[in-house]
Every structure is written in C-alpha cells, then in structure tokens.
C-alpha cells in the first residue's frame, strides 16, 4: 500500500501458543466489525489455529502462553531465531499469568494429584522473557482486541508502539463507576496499567492486575491505603499473586 508518501507493508505475522487457554489468540478473531480490515493488514504466515498453511518467513511472532515444558523452550528458541519482532501476547506470556499459581506447589505433588501413577513432564512456569528476549509486550487476560488492533496498525504504519502509562483507575473514573474500595473491596486498579477500559471494575468486579504494574506505581502507598481501610491483607495477597504480574514489588506487600 502506498499513499500520501508513505509506504505501508503488510505485516508478515505468525501466531504461536504455548501453555495457556488460547483466549488471547481467540481475540484476534473478535471485534468482527473491523475484522476484515484487520486481517487485510496481515500476511499470515503461520497460525495453526486458523490455517493449515504454514510458512516460516514471518517477521512478527505473537507468543501466547507461558513456558512449562522443555519442548516449549526449544520451540520458542526456534521462533526467536526467525522473528524480527517477538511479541509477548497476553498476561501468561508477559508475566506467567494464572499458570504461575502452580509454582506454589511441588512438581511431584502436582503430577501425583492430577495424573496419579503416570509420568507426566512439567516444569515450573516461566514467562516468555525468562527464556528469550521479548521485543514488545501486549498484556491482558485476555488481551484487549482494540489495543491489539491499534498496535498492529501502528506497526504497519511505522508508528510508535506504546502502552498507556496511566493506571486502571483513570479509565474507571471515565466510566463513572463507583470505586470498589467504597464498596468495601480491594481493587488493584490504582497499581495496574490501564488500557483495558476498566472492563472488570465496570462489571463491578475488582481488578486483579492482568495488565501488570502501571508506570512508576506507588506500592507502599497502595498497601498503606488497604491497611487504613482495614481490608484483608490475605485478600490483597491473593489478588496480587493472581497473574504473577507484580513479582518485583512483593517486598512491599503486607
């Protein structure tokens, strides 16, 4: 495509899933009103869930899911060798996601409980950046298709790709929601990166931080306000651990 002096090329893209629910890949097929335009931006080289054709000359690789078995490590490294831009796609890829909750338990205990008497290979859950270099992160559980679309448009037009730097609260207020703290609940909105349109709090359920920490979060002040309101620190702990997205901030907790 060439217009107004700019040359726009279709994005040679591939999508791969690892340990996950495939919900983020599914989002690629959502937002039906602009789906055909969206697909028009892409030259899909490899997307097993969608197409039987598979080529290896992609530039952008969307990586969904976390890593929890040796064969996944190898598959991921091979993708890294090919991809010019490797995208951690969704909270599992960015932070480990809900899958990381298994890391609380010993591998032995896990296998014994779910596959008694069987030999099943598994390892502690890793996020993508624990294994290979990540060029771009699109967090969310699931990713917000509107944001994905915007990012793909930006990549195609050579625009700067950025994530919002404000926390969820900012968007929550634009929805005229009653703050969940006012309703006696702990919400991770003040420390979580916006960009989801505050979808959870608009549905009146607390934010669990799937988009990870916002820019320069004030964790001590956040923990302080939870304490000041005499809310349960266990509850806070459960929420903060949910997507494994606040790893580096755990020393401030409770």
């Amino acid at each position, binding site marked *: 495509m060439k217009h107004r002096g700019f040359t726009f090329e279709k994005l040679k893209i591939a999508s791969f899933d690892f*340990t996950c629910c495939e919900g983020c890949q599914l989002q690629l097929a*959502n937002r*039906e*009103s602009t789906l055909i335009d969206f697909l028009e931006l892409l030259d899909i080289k490899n997307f097993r869930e969608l197409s*039987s054709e598979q080529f290896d000359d992609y530039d952008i690789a969307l990586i969904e899911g976390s890593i929890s078995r040796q064969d996944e490590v190898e598959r991921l490294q091979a993708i890294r060798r090919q991809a010019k831009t490797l995208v951690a796609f969704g909270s599992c890829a960015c932070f480990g996601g*809900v899958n990381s*909750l298994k890391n609380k338990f010993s591998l032995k*205990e896990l296998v014994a409980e*779910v*596959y008694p008497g069987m030999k099943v290979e598994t390892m502690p859950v890793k996020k993508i950046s624990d294994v290979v270099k990540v060029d771009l992160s699109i967090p969310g559980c699931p990713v917000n298709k509107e944001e994905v679309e915007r990012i793909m448009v930006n990549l195609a037009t050579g625009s700067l790709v950025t994530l919002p730097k404000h926390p969820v609260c900012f968007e929550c207020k634009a929805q005229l929601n009653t703050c969940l703290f006012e309703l006696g609940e702990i919400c991770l909105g003040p420390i979580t990166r916006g960009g989801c349109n505050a979808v959870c709090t608009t549905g009146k359920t607390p934010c669990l931080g799937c988009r990870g920490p916002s820019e320069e979060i004030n964790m001590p002040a956040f923990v302080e306000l939870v304490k000041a309101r005499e809310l349960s620190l266990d509850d806070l702990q459960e929420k903060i651990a949910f997507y494994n997205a606040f790893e580096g901030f755990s020393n401030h907790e409770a």
Partner: protein
Amino acid sequence: MHLKDSATMKRDYSLDIRHLTRVEGHANISITVKDGKLLDARWAIVETPRFFEVMVKGMSAERVPFLTSRICGICSISHALASIRALERAMKIEPPVVAEKTRLLAMHGETLQSHALHLFFLVAPDFTGTASVLPLITSHPDLIKAGLRIKELGNEISTVSAGRCTHPVSLVVGGLSKAPDKQQLLQLRTMIQESKPALDTACSFFRTLKIPEFKRETEFISLSNGSSYPSIGGSIISTDGVKQDENEYLLMTNEYSRDFSTSKFTRLSRESSVAGALARFNNNYDRLHPKAKEVAASFDLQAVCHNPFMNNIAQLIECIHILEDAGEMIDSLLDMELREIRTPYSPKAGSATGAVEAPRGILYHHMETSDEGKVVRADCIIPTTQNNANIGYDLGAIAEQALQEGKNDKEIEKLCEMVVRSYDPCISCSVH
C-alpha cells in the same frame, strides 16, 4: 476389528499428523493399517498440562470462578458458571432468578460465538477446499459476512450479560456483580432480529455441502433439566438409557488416563461415548424451538443420529434455537426489576458438582470448600475429554471404510482430519 476380506483392499496405510491445524490446541493423529488390518488408531493430545485442579487449592471461593474461567478461552463462561454452580451448591447458596436468567443468556452467547467460529472459520474451509477461511473472504463474501455477524451477535450477548465475552467479569458466586443494562438489552433484541437473515444465508450454504456418509453407533450423553434446552445443571442422561443426578458425575464419566495423551478419557455403557451439540440434539430434540426443528428436518437430521459429521449441522441448528430462545429470555429480563442480583453468602464447608452444557458438551466442575470458604479439592471433567475415546474409534472406523471404498491417501487424511474437526475439540481446555 478386521477389514472385510477383499484382496484389493489389503494394503498398508499409515497416517501421522503432528499438531493438527484448525483446532484449538496441540494434538496428533496416528493410524497404522498393515496388510489391510487396522493395527492402531490414535488421537493423542500433547498439550502441556496446567494443573488447575491443584492451583485452586487454598483459593477463596469468591476468586475461583475467575481462575477456572482461564481453563479455556473459548468456553470461559461455561467454566466460570460450572465453578459457580458447584460452589453455590456446596455452600448452599440460591442465586436470584435474574441471575439465573442472565447466566443462561450469557451461555447462549458463548455457544453462538463458539459454533460460529467453528463452522465458518474451521469447518467451512474443509468443504471449500481451502487452507483457511482467508480466501473465502473474497470467494464467499456473503457467507463470511453472515458468519461474522452471527459470531459478533454471540459475543455481544455474552458481553451484555457477563461484562466481557472472553473471561466474563460479572458472573460471581451468589449471582451477578452487575445486572445487564436494560438499554443494552433492548439493543441486543434488535440485533438478534436483524441477524436472522445471516443464519438463513448460513443454512443455505450448508445445505449445498456434501456431508460425508459415515456412521458408527455410540452412546450420546447430555444434561436434561426438563425445562430448557439444556444449559445449566440438571440430570445427566444418555441415549443408552442411563440417567444420573448431577452429583453422580463420576458414575457417568469413569475417567481414565493413557500414557500417550495428556488429556484423559471417559466411558459409560460402551467403550466410548459422545458429548456435544449432536448429543444434546439426540437427547433433547423435544425441547428444541420449532424453528430449529424445522431446519433440522430440512437437513434430514433426526434423533438419534450416529454420523459424527452431523455434529456440524447440529451446531447450526442450535444457533437457530439460540436466536429464538435468547430473544425470549431478553423479553423476560426486560419485564423484571433487575435489582436483586446477588444473594449474600457466608463461607461454608461442603462439596458439590456443577454441570453445564458448554458449547462442546457437558462440563463438570466438582468443588469442595472449607469452613473459611476456601476450595480444598477440585475436579474438572471437560467435554473434549469425554469425546477423546470416541474420536479414536471413529478414526479407525473411517480409515477402514475409506480404504474399502478405495480412497487414496490424501483423501483418507482429509477425512480423518475432518472427522476430528467435526467434534470441535477444545484441546487446551481438556488438558487443564
């Protein structure tokens, strides 16, 4: 099983597909025929396990549905609702009527979305001979537009009733955290009306397709609650005449593992059984909306049908049922005060099963809670798990049949892929 004793058919055949495409998740097919004799037919799921049943241990009941919804991106609403139902029954919580209705509506949306995705994105290319849906955008624009319209409607129904279509936000233990907005319900009702022609387009297209002739008798299992085309809770029934209470799910599944697959297997009266759209159709034909019955007749689909390829058509017929039924549900929600949406509860020890009809069949979550309302034990049995064994047997049978009919390797491979796809397997979900 032996092939018919015909000299010309005594050939060798082997099929080995690694990571079948156009299905959700990673799985392999392998078939070996030697000297005209089927040695092995395998449907092996190699997806990495996530151990959700252990992860939920120690988590508060309040949070658990948000976790279990992440078992599957396509049927997340079903997973959330299965957990919610299990937990509500374990802790003796009665959700308000508005919540029950809204939840059913949310499930309808999910099923519509899931069926549309399967029929138009994954199945249609098999019949048009393309590698994916992408070429159809230009070759069959009306069909694709219709498909997208139905899928969009499904997502919209879920979004209005559950706050978000993938990983719902307002379905909670005790009811709903937020009632659907009446204004949005009104818009939804219009959207449903306007989407009906899209389904007609889809039906016309599917009527032109040649569904492969194949039949293998098996047992179909689904929920039945006597009032609605099954969705949430009820007894578990089979076409072989078995009937059990929801809590007795173990008797209906008899789950077992095989070392080549990270997904498990189940059985009931025979060596394998089936759940899903066709099973629901076969068991609950009477409860279908008359419009849906009419279309079923136009496809010559009658209960009990034993052709797995007809599962695709059963899905299409369910779409019609959903469009009619969802409209009625919205009408009754609009007539209600959407105020009482959540029953307050205090944590309690208990255990119970929650069974729901997910798009691909019955989904069981069994939960045990402690006095503090924390989950202490969980068990989830996924629809695809209930179909795994049957898929394996179908693969063998269809390979045999195709060899007899003198089909070439490519044709057999395609048929095998197609039969698996017709089950609409949800693989990552089955390895949870």
